[in-house]
């Protein structure tokens, strides 16, 4: 390392990103460069530890300091990744578990690391397996934000979403049209931004 840096500085930067993401309620781009430099720092620190002579007795102070830096950096790395998958799961539930809807959003997808895309896929299949334990009567992935007051909803089509099976038979939702439909049939389309309540 030729650039002078305090131990733990990169870790702090990483945590700052997580905090910024929480404060602005946004899913930020995966900071691959920072993660990589932190991992490199960890390897260097491990080498530095190996280079310290240590034979019994109380450990030399240098070793304790470096070990503390290693522990801290590692927790920062894990915390950063844990915070991101928490946000991904929030995102997943906010669109009612519609994975294709998230993955087809190029802007969003560009902010995920490849491992995060894999994670989301695995998470989705785990949820689908859990969901299949319930009868089709109850879709556990449906919205739980506002308790239903009315069984029907007047909706306006914002984006074409093709033919959807409803209680009234199949309806071809075309942009600009309005329908009075059973809320439970189309709630997921509102969540995904195809329909808008009037």
């Amino acid at each position: 390392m030729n650039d002078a840096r305090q131990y733990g500085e990169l870790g702090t930067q990483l945590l700052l990103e997580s905090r910024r993401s929480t404060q602005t309620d946004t899913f930020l781009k995966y900071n691959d460069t920072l993660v990589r430099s932190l991992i490199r720092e960890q390897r260097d620190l491990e080498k530095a530890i190996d280079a310290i002579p240590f034979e019994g007795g109380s450990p030399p102070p240098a070793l304790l300091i470096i070990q503390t830096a290693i522990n801290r950096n590692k927790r920062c790395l894990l915390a950063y990744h844990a915070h991101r998958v928490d946000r991904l799961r929030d995102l997943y539930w906010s669109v009612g578990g519609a994975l294709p809807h998230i993955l087809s959003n190029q802007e969003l997808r560009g902010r995920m690391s490849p491992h995060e895309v894999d994670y989301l896929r695995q998470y989705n299949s785990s949820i689908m397996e859990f969901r299949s334990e319930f009868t089709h009567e109850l879709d556990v992935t449906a919205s739980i934000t506002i308790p239903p007051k009315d069984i029907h909803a007047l909706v306006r089509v914002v984006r074409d979403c093709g033919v959807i099976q409803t209680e009234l038979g199949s309806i071809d939702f075309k942009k600009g049209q309005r329908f009075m439909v059973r809320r439970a049939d189309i709630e997921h389309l509102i969540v995904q931004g195809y329909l808008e309540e009037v």
Partner: protein
Amino acid sequence: MLQHYHHNHELGVWDEEYEQRPPTPRRTDSPDDINPFLLERTPETPLEQLTRHWLNERHAPDILPAQEELLSGMLDHLRRQSEAVHLLRGDPSSSDEEHIRIMLVQTEIERVKFIVRSYVRTRLFKIEKYARFVTSNADVQRRLTAAERDHASRHAKITDQHFYLSVLQSLPDAQAHLDDTPVFYPSMVTEPDKSRPVFVHALTRCSQITLPDGATLDMEKGHISLTLYSVVEQLVARGEVELI
């Protein structure tokens, strides 16, 4: 059940038919009903039970015992109601009054489903949050349904795997583990924080509740108090208090 609906054109609004007794609002209980031997509590309807368990689950830091029997009874009932509604709606001889009742029942079905969903999802949220703790703790596992246990193990697995692929595999061997226990660091396994404060509402008289400092607290029926979850944990489990 279906035949009965079909021939008599009768459709009870939710609790009426399920319980065969008029629902009594629980909250009007007088606070001076102190003798538990003379005054038994009116039994709760399944919906009231579900609502209580739902609120408890939402407020408790820990994962509470799964209410499998109650839930499956509820789901069966929902299904029967939906089938009855479907039949009656298609029947041309249903009267206008009947149609209004059908609409009420449908709305009620959607509202009950909302509670069931919210209950299931609240548990799911906690199970995911404490997934690694759940997989290593037999006591919590007993409080989960089989499906929830499976989800917990799957979740712990994919999360560990994600950490491994994104971080741990690139670190030197000595650092590549998820079970570090350095001093002054919080544990790597997140556990429910039972010392979190909760609001409790006494459903019966609860005497001699031991507080952490050794003092005792008596709660009359209907009283509301703010205390640590660990203090009232057993009372919640026995249904003597509810979290609000």
